[in-house]
């Protein structure tokens, strides 16, 4: 079997898990073996109906009250134990924060290699993988010499596709033996915060600023435009490192990855760090003085010149158009 870890909230798997299942199913088919899933935590027993369409024949539900709340080390140990008991041909997980973490714990316990962020996997001795590097700016071809090979699939690199024929997703209860000290890392509390306005991650329009904005104060004109469009403001790493914007507003490899209808990038040259964060934007309008900058070259549209004149002019036109 090919075993896939499902990252879910109360029995609803996230999109990245369905994408991981899609890659795992392709591998299982090549190997002529079954696709199994493992689900842990609150609501995990109800996951079958949402993953059956992806060709899952068996869902291993980890039944242990101590593991209802997230506990990465113990969750990883459950996967390691299930793998030891069943000898899967491969263990796959989504490249979400939890997916990477839990699979790494399982790999550490089994003392097996793990290849993170794989977009292709070809069976063989050894297994051949293609995986993201530099936040998907480059690809690495690599040999993965694991028994079983363990790998994660980066979110939103591959589409989730249902199988031609759904699987039975038959529920099998698995009771791991969890040592007390494996529970030393677990969520002890959740603090809720109040957020105002549209979040960067979900905004339909994002107005981003970089070095060209020049100061904290310079972002005011970007905020005005974003306000008129019901969008959110973000910044490059230059903007957050200079303290012009809080880090939460950073668009980039080490910040937020955005996916708006339109990204208006003002005074941003387009370093790799930033381009990885705005790759999900459907359309890009660049405002820049340099027509050879990466941001302008990769944009759909560009206006050349000083953003301090252009951005307020756009805001004015939008106000006029709204009447």
């Amino acid at each position: 079997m090919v075993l896939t870890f499902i990252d879910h909230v109360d029995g609803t798997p996230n999109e990245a898990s369905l994408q991981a299942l899609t890659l795992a199913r392709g591998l299982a088919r090549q190997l002529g073996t079954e696709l199994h899933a493992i689900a842990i935590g609150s609501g995990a027993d109800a996951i079958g109906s949402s993953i059956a369409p992806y060709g899952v024949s068996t869902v291993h539900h980890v039944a242990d009250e101590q593991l209802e709340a997230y506990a990465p080390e113990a969750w990883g140990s459950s996967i390691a134990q299930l793998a030891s008991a069943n000898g899967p041909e491969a263990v796959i997980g989504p490249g979400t924060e939890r997916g990477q973490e839990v699979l790494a714990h399982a790999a550490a316990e089994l003392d097996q290699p793990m290849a993170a962020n794989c977009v292709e996997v070809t069976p063989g001795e050894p297994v051949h993988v293609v995986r993201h590097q530099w936040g998907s700016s480059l690809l690495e071809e690599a040999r993965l010499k694991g028994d079983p090979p363990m790998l994660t699939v980066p979110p939103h690199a591959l589409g989730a596709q249902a199988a031609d024929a759904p699987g039975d997703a038959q529920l099998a209860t698995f009771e791991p033996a969890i040592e007390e000290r494996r529970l030393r890392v677990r969520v002890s509390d959740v603090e809720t915060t109040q957020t105002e306005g549209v979040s960067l991650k979900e905004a339909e329009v994002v107005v981003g600023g970089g070095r060209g904005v020049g100061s904290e104060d310079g972002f005011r004109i970007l905020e005005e435009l974003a306000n008129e469009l019901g969008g959110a403001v973000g910044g490059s790493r230059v903007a957050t490192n200079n303290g012009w914007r809080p880090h939460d507003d950073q668009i980039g490899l080490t910040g937020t990855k955005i996916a708006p209808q339109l990204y208006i990038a003002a005074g941003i040259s387009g370093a790799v760090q930033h381009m990885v964060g705005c790759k999900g934007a459907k359309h890009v309008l660049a405002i820049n003085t340099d027509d050879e900058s990466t941001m302008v070259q990769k944009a759909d549209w560009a206006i050349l010149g000083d953003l301090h004149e252009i951005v307020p002019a756009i805001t004015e036109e939008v106000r006029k158009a709204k009447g």
Partner: protein
Amino acid sequence: MNILVCVKRVPDTGAKMVLTDDEQGINTRNLGFTISPHEECAVEEAVQTVEAHGGASTVLTLGPSDADEQLRESLAKGVDSAVLLETDREWDPQATARAITEAVQQQEANGEPFDLILFGNEASDTADYQVPIRVAKALDRPCATSIKAIEVGDGKVRAKRELGADWEVYELEMPAVLAVMEGLNLPRHPSLRGTMTAKKKPVDRQQPEPAEPKLEKIRLKHPPEEGGQVEILGQGADAAPKVVQILRGLEVL
């Protein structure tokens, strides 16, 4: 508080990445080197924690001989000592974790244990997401990852991780291992005096035994080019009316 912070030397890539002829790496002829943004925050956190609670901080890297440049940058920001595990090629995550674990055991045998071992959540280049967890496992210490806030006190560390708009809270007994993310703090720039002092601080160079890689690079390649031609709407503020047409076309206005 004794803190170890682990970093990795990577090219400071800028906008374009050109591969070497053998496709084993990025052509760095015109590039400088740096550490990942997550690691810069790990270094800053180590320095701030020692400033607040006393103790000492150590920075460690596994990499080429030239990686002492990155160690000295950390020393210039206030880290007290440095360890360089010299290698002549890239090591896979398992071998890296093993060498770091052995170095930690050796350092601790010579002195105080590290209350905290800090890593960046993932390296900028390979993003393996596993070295901190493997080191924690080998040392039998608790480990939390994707951490963006840390409070230390009473033999415990309270570490927070973003979960949508909320925060997950972990309370770990020290000694502990944390993998941190940018946003944890705002890293300082080294002072001139710090840079001068860093030149005189010793770097403990060691040569760990290499291991057979189990995740072995064959080659790097560029992903297929996306996108087409940019349409220049115009120069300066006069082009603004065209943006309204685009906004209407995309139905965001």
